[in-house]
Protein backbone atom coordinates (compact mmCIF):
# COMPACT_ATOMS: atom_id res chain seq x y z
CA UNK A 1 0.00 0.00 0.00
CA UNK A 2 3.02 2.28 0.43
CA UNK A 3 4.02 4.57 -2.38
CA UNK A 4 7.61 5.76 -2.47
CA UNK A 5 8.90 8.89 -4.14
CA UNK A 6 12.42 9.37 -5.49
CA UNK A 7 13.95 10.15 -2.07
CA UNK A 8 13.03 8.54 1.26
CA UNK A 9 9.62 10.26 1.36
CA UNK A 10 6.64 7.95 1.18
CA UNK A 11 2.86 7.93 1.48
CA UNK A 12 0.79 5.55 3.58
CA UNK A 13 -3.01 5.63 3.94
CA UNK A 14 -3.86 5.74 7.65
CA UNK A 15 -7.65 5.60 7.30
CA UNK A 16 -10.24 6.14 4.55
CA UNK A 17 -9.96 9.87 5.26
CA UNK A 18 -6.28 10.32 6.11
CA UNK A 19 -2.84 9.88 4.62
CA UNK A 20 0.56 9.79 6.32
CA UNK A 21 3.53 11.44 4.63
CA UNK A 22 6.79 10.04 6.02
CA UNK A 23 10.17 11.70 5.63
CA UNK A 24 12.20 8.57 6.33
CA UNK A 25 11.87 6.57 9.53
CA UNK A 26 14.30 8.32 11.83
CA UNK A 27 14.20 11.35 14.09
CA UNK A 28 16.65 13.70 12.37
CA UNK A 29 17.04 17.44 11.98
CA UNK A 30 16.65 17.03 8.22
CA UNK A 31 13.31 15.20 8.61
CA UNK A 32 12.17 17.84 11.10
CA UNK A 33 13.01 20.63 8.65
CA UNK A 34 11.04 18.90 5.91
CA UNK A 35 8.05 18.40 8.23
CA UNK A 36 8.11 22.13 9.05
CA UNK A 37 8.44 23.10 5.40
CA UNK A 38 5.56 20.92 4.20
CA UNK A 39 3.41 22.05 7.15
CA UNK A 40 4.09 25.69 6.29
CA UNK A 41 3.37 25.16 2.61
CA UNK A 42 0.11 23.34 3.40
CA UNK A 43 -0.88 26.18 5.73
CA UNK A 44 -0.02 28.85 3.16
CA UNK A 45 -1.66 27.04 0.25
CA UNK A 46 -4.38 24.82 1.71
CA UNK A 47 -5.60 21.91 -0.41
CA UNK A 48 -9.39 21.91 -0.92
CA UNK A 49 -10.90 19.05 1.08
CA UNK A 50 -8.03 18.80 3.59
CA UNK A 51 -9.36 19.16 7.15
CA UNK A 52 -6.46 18.76 9.50
CA UNK A 53 -2.70 18.35 9.75
CA UNK A 54 -0.86 16.47 12.48
CA UNK A 55 2.89 16.99 12.25
CA UNK A 56 5.20 14.70 14.22
CA UNK A 57 8.93 13.80 14.29
CA UNK A 58 9.30 12.68 10.69
CA UNK A 59 5.75 12.56 9.37
CA UNK A 60 2.59 14.56 8.81
CA UNK A 61 -0.85 12.99 9.03
CA UNK A 62 -3.16 14.72 6.56
CA UNK A 63 -6.90 14.27 7.22
CA UNK A 64 -9.33 14.98 4.41
CA UNK A 65 -12.97 14.76 3.41
CA UNK A 66 -13.25 11.58 1.34
CA UNK A 67 -16.35 12.90 -0.42
CA UNK A 68 -14.10 15.55 -1.99
CA UNK A 69 -10.72 13.81 -2.20
CA UNK A 70 -9.18 10.36 -2.32
CA UNK A 71 -5.70 9.07 -1.44
CA UNK A 72 -4.49 8.95 -5.04
CA UNK A 73 -5.54 12.50 -5.93
CA UNK A 74 -4.11 13.84 -2.68
CA UNK A 75 -0.78 12.08 -3.28
CA UNK A 76 -0.67 13.62 -6.76
CA UNK A 77 -1.18 17.13 -5.36
CA UNK A 78 1.32 16.50 -2.56
CA UNK A 79 4.02 15.43 -5.04
CA UNK A 80 3.79 18.94 -6.47
CA UNK A 81 4.17 20.41 -2.98
CA UNK A 82 7.14 18.13 -2.16
CA UNK A 83 8.94 19.28 -5.32
CA UNK A 84 8.84 22.83 -3.97
CA UNK A 85 10.09 22.09 -0.44
CA UNK A 86 13.72 22.93 -1.21
CA UNK A 87 12.69 26.50 -2.01
CA UNK A 88 10.60 26.92 1.17
CA UNK A 89 11.86 29.28 3.84
CA UNK A 90 10.97 28.57 7.45
CA UNK A 91 11.46 31.12 10.18
CA UNK A 92 14.19 30.60 12.75
CA UNK A 93 12.68 29.17 15.97
CA UNK A 94 12.41 31.48 18.98
CA UNK A 95 14.71 31.03 21.98
CA UNK A 96 12.58 30.46 25.09
CA UNK A 97 13.23 29.71 28.75
CA UNK A 98 11.08 27.40 30.84
CA UNK A 99 11.69 27.81 34.59
CA UNK A 100 11.47 24.50 36.47
CA UNK A 101 11.40 23.61 40.12
CA UNK A 102 13.06 20.17 40.15
CA UNK A 103 12.63 17.24 42.51
CA UNK A 104 10.65 16.73 45.74
CA UNK A 105 6.87 16.95 45.22
CA UNK A 106 7.51 18.84 41.97
CA UNK A 107 9.36 15.95 40.36
CA UNK A 108 8.54 12.70 42.20
CA UNK A 109 10.66 10.55 39.85
CA UNK A 110 13.86 12.66 39.96
CA UNK A 111 15.67 10.59 42.58
CA UNK A 112 14.90 7.32 40.83
CA UNK A 113 15.97 8.68 37.43
CA UNK A 114 19.24 9.94 38.93
CA UNK A 115 19.86 6.62 40.69
CA UNK A 116 19.21 4.65 37.48
CA UNK A 117 22.07 6.54 35.84
CA UNK A 118 24.39 6.59 38.86
CA UNK A 119 23.97 10.34 39.24
CA UNK A 120 23.10 12.56 42.17
CA UNK A 121 19.78 14.42 41.80
CA UNK A 122 21.76 17.66 41.45
CA UNK A 123 23.76 16.19 38.56
CA UNK A 124 20.59 14.99 36.85
CA UNK A 125 19.09 18.50 37.15
CA UNK A 126 22.29 20.04 35.79
CA UNK A 127 22.21 17.68 32.82
CA UNK A 128 18.57 18.35 32.02
CA UNK A 129 19.15 22.11 32.15
CA UNK A 130 22.44 21.94 30.25
CA UNK A 131 21.22 21.71 26.68
CA UNK A 132 19.00 23.60 24.24
CA UNK A 133 16.06 21.50 23.09
CA UNK A 134 14.16 21.74 19.81
CA UNK A 135 10.35 21.65 19.73
CA UNK A 136 9.89 18.86 17.19
CA UNK A 137 6.10 19.24 17.19
CA UNK A 138 3.05 19.73 19.40
CA UNK A 139 0.81 16.72 19.92
CA UNK A 140 -0.92 14.36 22.36
CA UNK A 141 -2.98 17.12 24.07
CA UNK A 142 -3.27 20.90 23.46
CA UNK A 143 0.12 22.59 23.87
CA UNK A 144 2.20 19.46 24.62
CA UNK A 145 5.63 20.00 23.01
CA UNK A 146 7.83 17.03 22.12
CA UNK A 147 11.36 18.25 22.93
CA UNK A 148 14.64 16.63 21.97
CA UNK A 149 17.22 15.55 22.43
CA UNK A 150 17.74 14.68 26.03
CA UNK A 151 21.42 14.13 26.97
CA UNK A 152 22.20 10.42 26.47
CA UNK A 153 23.14 10.10 30.17
CA UNK A 154 19.56 10.92 31.18
CA UNK A 155 17.65 8.82 28.62
CA UNK A 156 15.17 6.71 30.63
CA UNK A 157 12.34 4.39 29.59
CA UNK A 158 8.72 5.27 30.38
CA UNK A 159 7.10 4.14 33.64
CA UNK A 160 5.84 0.55 33.51
CA UNK A 161 2.34 1.72 34.35
CA UNK A 162 1.32 5.28 33.51
CA UNK A 163 0.05 7.64 36.20
CA UNK A 164 -3.69 8.26 36.11
CA UNK A 165 -3.07 11.96 36.39
CA UNK A 166 -0.04 14.24 36.20
CA UNK A 167 -0.20 17.76 37.70
CA UNK A 168 -0.29 20.48 35.00
CA UNK A 169 3.19 21.90 34.31
CA UNK A 170 4.93 18.61 35.16
CA UNK A 171 8.20 18.17 33.28
CA UNK A 172 8.69 14.60 32.15
CA UNK A 173 11.26 12.51 30.34
CA UNK A 174 10.77 9.40 28.19
CA UNK A 175 13.49 7.80 26.11
CA UNK A 176 15.51 10.67 24.72
CA UNK A 177 12.56 13.07 24.78
CA UNK A 178 11.43 15.60 27.34
CA UNK A 179 8.23 17.62 27.60
CA UNK A 180 5.82 19.54 29.82
CA UNK A 181 2.29 18.28 30.57
CA UNK A 182 -0.07 21.23 30.01
CA UNK A 183 -3.09 19.57 31.67
CA UNK A 184 -3.82 17.00 34.34
CA UNK A 185 -3.74 14.02 31.98
CA UNK A 186 -2.73 10.38 32.34
CA UNK A 187 0.95 10.01 31.52
CA UNK A 188 3.77 7.50 31.45
CA UNK A 189 6.72 9.89 31.34
CA UNK A 190 8.96 10.13 34.42
CA UNK A 191 8.37 13.40 36.23
CA UNK A 192 11.48 15.31 37.33
CA UNK A 193 10.08 18.81 37.98
CA UNK A 194 7.31 21.32 37.40
CA UNK A 195 7.04 24.71 35.73
CA UNK A 196 4.72 27.49 36.93
CA UNK A 197 4.25 28.61 33.31
CA UNK A 198 0.92 27.81 31.66
CA UNK A 199 1.78 25.83 28.54
CA UNK A 200 -1.66 26.31 26.96
CA UNK A 201 -3.49 29.62 27.35
CA UNK A 202 -6.89 29.57 25.64
CA UNK A 203 -7.38 33.30 26.21
CA UNK A 204 -4.23 34.35 24.35
CA UNK A 205 -3.88 34.69 20.62
CA UNK A 206 -0.87 32.37 20.63
CA UNK A 207 -2.54 29.69 22.74
CA UNK A 208 0.43 27.37 22.98
CA UNK A 209 3.45 28.75 24.88
CA UNK A 210 5.73 26.73 22.58
CA UNK A 211 5.59 26.39 18.80
CA UNK A 212 7.10 23.87 16.41
CA UNK A 213 10.75 24.76 15.75
CA UNK A 214 11.25 26.81 18.94
CA UNK A 215 14.46 26.34 20.95
CA UNK A 216 13.97 25.77 24.65
CA UNK A 217 16.16 25.80 27.74
CA UNK A 218 15.04 24.75 31.20
CA UNK A 219 16.24 26.94 34.07
CA UNK A 220 16.15 25.62 37.66
CA UNK A 221 14.15 27.71 40.16
CA UNK A 222 13.46 27.35 43.88
CA UNK A 223 10.15 26.29 45.43
CA UNK A 224 9.72 29.87 46.69
CA UNK A 225 10.20 31.27 43.18
CA UNK A 226 7.79 28.65 41.83
CA UNK A 227 5.13 29.76 44.33
CA UNK A 228 5.72 33.43 43.54
CA UNK A 229 5.49 32.86 39.78
CA UNK A 230 2.42 30.63 40.10
CA UNK A 231 0.59 33.33 42.05
CA UNK A 232 1.73 36.19 39.81
Amino acid sequence: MQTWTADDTHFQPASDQSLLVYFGQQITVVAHQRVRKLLRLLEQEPIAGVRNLNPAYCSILISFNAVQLNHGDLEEILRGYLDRLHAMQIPEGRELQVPVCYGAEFGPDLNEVAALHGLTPAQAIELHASVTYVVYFLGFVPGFAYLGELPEALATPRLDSPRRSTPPGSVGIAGNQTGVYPFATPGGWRLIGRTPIAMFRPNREAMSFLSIGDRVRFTPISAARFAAMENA
Partner: protein
Amino acid sequence: MSTIQVQAPGLQTTVQDLGRSGFGPIGVSPSGAADPISLRLGNRLVANDESAAGLEMMLLGGTLVFPQGAILALTGSDFGAMLDDVRLDLGTSVEVRPGQTLRLGPTSSGARCYVCVHGGIAVKSFLGSASTHILSGLGGFEGRALRKGDVLRIGSTSEPFRKRAIVPQASEHLSRRKVLRVTPGPQADWFSESSLRSFYAGAYRVGEQSNRMGLRLEGAAVTQRGAGEMITEGVSLGAIQVPVGGSPIVLFVEQQTTGGYPKIANVISADLHRVGQLRPRDEIRFEPATFDAARSLLIEQEKLLASRELILE
Protein backbone atom coordinates in the same frame (compact mmCIF):
# COMPACT_ATOMS: atom_id res chain seq x y z
CA MET B 1 -33.72 34.99 25.84
CA SER B 2 -34.67 31.36 26.40
CA THR B 3 -32.79 29.13 28.79
CA ILE B 4 -32.47 25.54 29.95
CA GLN B 5 -32.08 24.84 33.66
CA VAL B 6 -30.18 21.73 34.59
CA GLN B 7 -32.05 20.08 37.44
CA ALA B 8 -30.06 16.83 37.22
CA PRO B 9 -27.07 16.48 34.89
CA GLY B 10 -27.13 12.73 34.26
CA LEU B 11 -23.91 10.71 34.09
CA GLN B 12 -22.05 12.94 31.63
CA THR B 13 -23.93 15.58 29.66
CA THR B 14 -21.86 17.86 27.47
CA VAL B 15 -22.40 20.56 24.87
CA GLN B 16 -21.25 19.22 21.50
CA ASP B 17 -21.36 20.26 17.86
CA LEU B 18 -19.49 18.75 14.92
CA GLY B 19 -16.09 19.61 16.41
CA ARG B 20 -13.13 21.82 15.56
CA SER B 21 -10.95 20.76 12.68
CA GLY B 22 -7.58 22.13 11.73
CA PHE B 23 -5.80 22.56 15.07
CA GLY B 24 -3.64 19.45 14.96
CA PRO B 25 -0.48 21.61 14.75
CA ILE B 26 -1.15 22.84 18.34
CA GLY B 27 -2.25 19.43 19.60
CA VAL B 28 -6.01 20.11 19.73
CA SER B 29 -8.19 17.20 18.61
CA PRO B 30 -11.53 17.85 16.89
CA SER B 31 -13.77 16.58 19.73
CA GLY B 32 -17.47 17.01 18.78
CA ALA B 33 -20.45 14.66 18.98
CA ALA B 34 -19.57 10.99 19.47
CA ASP B 35 -22.48 10.13 17.14
CA PRO B 36 -22.43 13.08 14.76
CA ILE B 37 -25.16 11.67 12.53
CA SER B 38 -27.66 11.70 15.39
CA LEU B 39 -26.72 15.32 16.19
CA ARG B 40 -27.08 16.33 12.53
CA LEU B 41 -30.50 14.68 12.24
CA GLY B 42 -31.64 16.23 15.53
CA ASN B 43 -30.64 19.65 14.29
CA ARG B 44 -32.55 19.17 11.05
CA LEU B 45 -35.68 18.19 13.00
CA VAL B 46 -35.61 21.52 14.83
CA ALA B 47 -34.73 23.62 11.75
CA ASN B 48 -31.12 24.28 12.81
CA ASP B 49 -28.00 24.23 10.75
CA GLU B 50 -26.67 20.63 10.95
CA SER B 51 -23.63 21.85 12.86
CA ALA B 52 -25.52 23.64 15.67
CA ALA B 53 -24.62 22.72 19.25
CA GLY B 54 -26.81 20.28 21.16
CA LEU B 55 -26.51 18.27 24.36
CA GLU B 56 -24.90 14.85 24.35
CA MET B 57 -26.02 12.58 27.17
CA MET B 58 -24.19 9.37 28.02
CA LEU B 59 -25.76 6.15 29.38
CA LEU B 60 -27.89 7.95 31.97
CA GLY B 61 -29.74 11.11 30.99
CA GLY B 62 -30.54 14.16 33.06
CA THR B 63 -33.51 16.36 33.93
CA LEU B 64 -33.91 19.71 32.17
CA VAL B 65 -36.43 22.49 32.75
CA PHE B 66 -37.42 24.91 29.98
CA PRO B 67 -38.74 28.08 31.72
CA GLN B 68 -39.52 29.83 28.41
CA GLY B 69 -40.30 26.69 26.38
CA ALA B 70 -38.47 25.43 23.29
CA ILE B 71 -38.70 23.45 20.09
CA LEU B 72 -36.93 20.19 20.77
CA ALA B 73 -35.98 16.85 19.27
CA LEU B 74 -34.25 13.78 20.67
CA THR B 75 -32.09 11.51 18.55
CA GLY B 76 -29.62 8.69 19.08
CA SER B 77 -30.44 6.11 21.73
CA ASP B 78 -33.61 5.65 23.75
CA PHE B 79 -33.20 7.07 27.28
CA GLY B 80 -36.92 6.69 28.09
CA ALA B 81 -37.56 10.44 27.81
CA MET B 82 -40.65 11.99 29.42
CA LEU B 83 -41.88 15.54 28.86
CA ASP B 84 -43.73 16.14 32.12
CA ASP B 85 -45.78 12.92 32.15
CA VAL B 86 -45.86 12.20 28.42
CA ARG B 87 -43.48 9.74 26.78
CA LEU B 88 -41.34 11.41 24.07
CA ASP B 89 -40.37 9.51 20.95
CA LEU B 90 -36.97 9.71 19.30
CA GLY B 91 -36.61 11.32 15.90
CA THR B 92 -39.52 13.73 15.97
CA SER B 93 -39.78 17.43 16.81
CA VAL B 94 -41.96 18.58 19.68
CA GLU B 95 -43.01 21.93 21.13
CA VAL B 96 -42.14 22.35 24.80
CA ARG B 97 -44.41 24.77 26.67
CA PRO B 98 -42.90 27.24 29.15
CA GLY B 99 -42.10 25.55 32.45
CA GLN B 100 -42.18 21.99 31.19
CA THR B 101 -39.64 19.43 32.41
CA LEU B 102 -37.78 16.90 30.26
CA ARG B 103 -36.64 13.80 32.13
CA LEU B 104 -34.28 11.23 30.67
CA GLY B 105 -33.36 8.01 32.40
CA PRO B 106 -30.98 5.11 31.75
CA THR B 107 -30.48 3.98 28.17
CA SER B 108 -32.38 1.04 26.84
CA SER B 109 -30.37 0.89 23.61
CA GLY B 110 -27.03 2.56 22.80
CA ALA B 111 -24.65 4.84 24.68
CA ARG B 112 -25.77 8.32 23.67
CA CYS B 113 -28.86 10.45 23.31
CA TYR B 114 -28.86 13.94 21.80
CA VAL B 115 -31.09 16.79 22.88
CA CYS B 116 -31.40 19.37 20.10
CA VAL B 117 -33.26 22.66 20.50
CA HIS B 118 -34.24 25.16 17.83
CA GLY B 119 -31.65 27.94 18.03
CA GLY B 120 -28.98 25.57 19.37
CA ILE B 121 -27.17 25.76 22.70
CA ALA B 122 -25.37 29.12 22.88
CA VAL B 123 -21.90 28.93 24.43
CA LYS B 124 -18.73 30.88 23.83
CA SER B 125 -17.00 29.40 20.82
CA PHE B 126 -13.48 28.01 21.33
CA LEU B 127 -11.41 27.62 18.14
CA GLY B 128 -14.55 27.88 16.07
CA SER B 129 -16.58 25.23 17.87
CA ALA B 130 -18.93 24.81 20.83
CA SER B 131 -17.67 21.29 21.54
CA THR B 132 -16.52 20.34 25.00
CA HIS B 133 -13.08 18.73 25.33
CA ILE B 134 -13.36 17.30 28.82
CA LEU B 135 -9.76 16.20 29.38
CA SER B 136 -8.30 19.67 28.76
CA GLY B 137 -11.31 21.54 30.15
CA LEU B 138 -11.76 23.53 26.95
CA GLY B 139 -14.82 24.52 24.92
CA GLY B 140 -18.49 23.82 25.59
CA PHE B 141 -20.06 25.05 28.83
CA GLU B 142 -17.12 26.09 31.05
CA GLY B 143 -15.07 23.26 29.55
CA ARG B 144 -16.86 20.57 31.56
CA ALA B 145 -19.83 18.25 31.80
CA LEU B 146 -23.02 19.92 33.07
CA ARG B 147 -23.83 20.12 36.77
CA LYS B 148 -27.02 20.60 38.74
CA GLY B 149 -27.97 24.27 38.74
CA ASP B 150 -26.27 25.19 35.44
CA VAL B 151 -28.30 27.51 33.23
CA LEU B 152 -27.75 27.18 29.48
CA ARG B 153 -28.76 29.80 26.95
CA ILE B 154 -30.64 28.84 23.82
CA GLY B 155 -29.52 30.66 20.65
CA SER B 156 -31.80 33.05 18.84
CA THR B 157 -34.79 31.40 17.23
CA SER B 158 -36.59 32.40 14.09
CA GLU B 159 -38.95 29.68 12.95
CA PRO B 160 -42.38 28.73 14.24
CA PHE B 161 -42.87 25.12 15.33
CA ARG B 162 -43.35 22.52 12.62
CA LYS B 163 -43.79 18.83 13.20
CA ARG B 164 -40.91 16.97 11.57
CA ALA B 165 -39.89 13.31 11.76
CA ILE B 166 -37.11 11.14 10.37
CA VAL B 167 -38.36 8.59 7.84
CA PRO B 168 -38.23 5.08 9.34
CA GLN B 169 -36.14 3.64 6.47
CA ALA B 170 -33.38 6.12 7.28
CA SER B 171 -33.25 5.17 10.94
CA GLU B 172 -32.94 1.58 9.81
CA HIS B 173 -30.03 2.34 7.53
CA LEU B 174 -28.24 4.24 10.28
CA SER B 175 -29.04 1.77 13.02
CA ARG B 176 -26.63 0.16 15.45
CA ARG B 177 -24.22 -2.48 14.18
CA LYS B 178 -22.08 -4.74 16.24
CA VAL B 179 -19.78 -5.45 13.31
CA LEU B 180 -17.52 -2.51 12.61
CA ARG B 181 -15.87 -2.31 9.24
CA VAL B 182 -12.18 -1.38 9.27
CA THR B 183 -9.44 -0.54 6.81
CA PRO B 184 -5.83 -1.68 7.43
CA GLY B 185 -3.89 0.50 9.87
CA PRO B 186 -0.57 2.08 8.87
CA GLN B 187 1.31 -0.58 10.89
CA ALA B 188 -0.95 -3.55 10.00
CA ASP B 189 2.08 -5.42 8.67
CA TRP B 190 3.75 -5.21 12.09
CA PHE B 191 1.32 -7.87 13.32
CA SER B 192 1.67 -11.59 12.73
CA GLU B 193 -0.69 -13.46 10.42
CA SER B 194 -2.16 -15.34 13.36
CA SER B 195 -2.73 -12.11 15.30
CA LEU B 196 -4.48 -10.55 12.32
CA ARG B 197 -6.61 -13.67 11.95
CA SER B 198 -7.69 -13.66 15.58
CA PHE B 199 -8.32 -9.90 15.45
CA TYR B 200 -10.83 -10.39 12.63
CA ALA B 201 -12.24 -13.70 13.86
CA GLY B 202 -12.74 -12.92 17.53
CA ALA B 203 -15.25 -10.85 19.45
CA TYR B 204 -14.14 -7.91 21.60
CA ARG B 205 -15.90 -6.50 24.62
CA VAL B 206 -15.98 -2.75 25.16
CA GLY B 207 -14.19 -2.09 28.48
CA GLU B 208 -15.65 -0.17 31.42
CA GLN B 209 -12.93 2.46 31.19
CA SER B 210 -14.00 3.56 27.72
CA ASN B 211 -14.78 7.22 27.18
CA ARG B 212 -14.77 9.95 24.54
CA MET B 213 -10.96 9.65 24.26
CA GLY B 214 -10.96 5.99 23.43
CA LEU B 215 -12.64 2.62 23.77
CA ARG B 216 -10.62 -0.07 25.48
CA LEU B 217 -11.31 -3.51 24.08
CA GLU B 218 -11.11 -6.83 25.90
CA GLY B 219 -10.61 -10.02 23.92
CA ALA B 220 -7.92 -11.91 22.08
CA ALA B 221 -4.58 -10.15 22.61
CA VAL B 222 -2.89 -8.98 19.43
CA THR B 223 0.86 -9.36 19.30
CA GLN B 224 3.46 -7.67 17.19
CA ARG B 225 5.69 -9.64 14.88
CA GLY B 226 8.96 -8.21 16.19
CA ALA B 227 10.01 -5.66 18.74
CA GLY B 228 9.79 -2.71 16.38
CA GLU B 229 10.20 0.75 17.88
CA MET B 230 7.47 3.15 16.77
CA ILE B 231 8.28 6.80 16.23
CA THR B 232 5.40 8.94 17.50
CA GLU B 233 3.13 10.05 14.63
CA GLY B 234 -0.28 11.59 13.99
CA VAL B 235 -3.25 9.32 14.72
CA SER B 236 -6.54 9.40 12.86
CA LEU B 237 -10.06 9.22 14.25
CA GLY B 238 -11.09 5.61 14.76
CA ALA B 239 -7.52 4.30 14.71
CA ILE B 240 -7.17 0.98 16.55
CA GLN B 241 -3.86 1.10 18.36
CA VAL B 242 -2.30 -1.81 20.16
CA PRO B 243 -0.20 -1.01 23.26
CA VAL B 244 2.37 -3.39 24.68
CA GLY B 245 -0.19 -5.52 26.54
CA GLY B 246 -1.94 -6.42 23.26
CA SER B 247 -5.41 -5.06 24.17
CA PRO B 248 -6.60 -2.82 21.32
CA ILE B 249 -7.86 0.73 21.92
CA VAL B 250 -10.13 2.55 19.44
CA LEU B 251 -9.10 6.21 19.46
CA PHE B 252 -12.17 8.39 19.53
CA VAL B 253 -13.37 12.01 19.27
CA GLU B 254 -11.37 13.44 22.19
CA GLN B 255 -8.36 11.41 21.16
CA GLN B 256 -4.73 12.30 21.63
CA THR B 257 -3.54 13.86 18.36
CA THR B 258 -0.31 11.84 18.14
CA GLY B 259 0.74 8.49 19.53
CA GLY B 260 3.51 5.96 19.61
CA TYR B 261 1.68 2.63 19.46
CA PRO B 262 1.24 0.67 16.20
CA LYS B 263 -2.22 0.77 14.60
CA ILE B 264 -3.59 -2.52 13.34
CA ALA B 265 -6.72 -1.10 11.70
CA ASN B 266 -8.98 1.95 11.46
CA VAL B 267 -12.77 2.05 11.73
CA ILE B 268 -14.25 3.26 8.44
CA SER B 269 -15.78 6.75 8.48
CA ALA B 270 -19.26 5.43 7.66
CA ASP B 271 -19.21 3.39 10.89
CA LEU B 272 -17.70 5.99 13.26
CA HIS B 273 -21.09 7.22 14.49
CA ARG B 274 -21.82 3.64 15.54
CA VAL B 275 -18.73 3.65 17.76
CA GLY B 276 -20.36 6.57 19.59
CA GLN B 277 -23.29 4.33 20.47
CA LEU B 278 -21.23 1.46 21.94
CA ARG B 279 -21.71 0.86 25.65
CA PRO B 280 -19.32 -0.75 28.09
CA ARG B 281 -19.70 -4.55 27.90
CA ASP B 282 -21.07 -4.42 24.34
CA GLU B 283 -19.57 -7.14 22.16
CA ILE B 284 -18.22 -6.13 18.76
CA ARG B 285 -16.42 -7.68 15.82
CA PHE B 286 -14.28 -6.29 13.05
CA GLU B 287 -14.70 -6.87 9.35
CA PRO B 288 -12.03 -5.87 6.83
CA ALA B 289 -12.89 -3.31 4.13
CA THR B 290 -10.85 -1.73 1.35
CA PHE B 291 -10.22 2.00 1.21
CA ASP B 292 -12.33 2.21 -1.96
CA ALA B 293 -15.26 0.38 -0.37
CA ALA B 294 -15.02 2.58 2.73
CA ARG B 295 -15.10 5.70 0.60
CA SER B 296 -18.12 4.46 -1.40
CA LEU B 297 -20.00 3.69 1.83
CA LEU B 298 -19.26 7.20 3.14
CA ILE B 299 -20.42 8.84 -0.10
CA GLU B 300 -23.61 6.76 -0.05
CA GLN B 301 -24.23 7.68 3.59
CA GLU B 302 -23.70 11.39 2.93
CA LYS B 303 -26.08 11.19 -0.04
CA LEU B 304 -28.76 9.72 2.19
CA LEU B 305 -28.16 12.37 4.87
CA ALA B 306 -28.37 15.16 2.30
CA SER B 307 -31.65 13.93 0.79
CA ARG B 308 -34.77 16.04 1.30
CA GLU B 309 -36.90 12.91 1.72
CA LEU B 310 -35.04 12.02 4.90
CA ILE B 311 -37.22 14.29 7.01
CA LEU B 312 -41.02 14.18 6.83
CA GLU B 313 -42.86 17.44 7.41
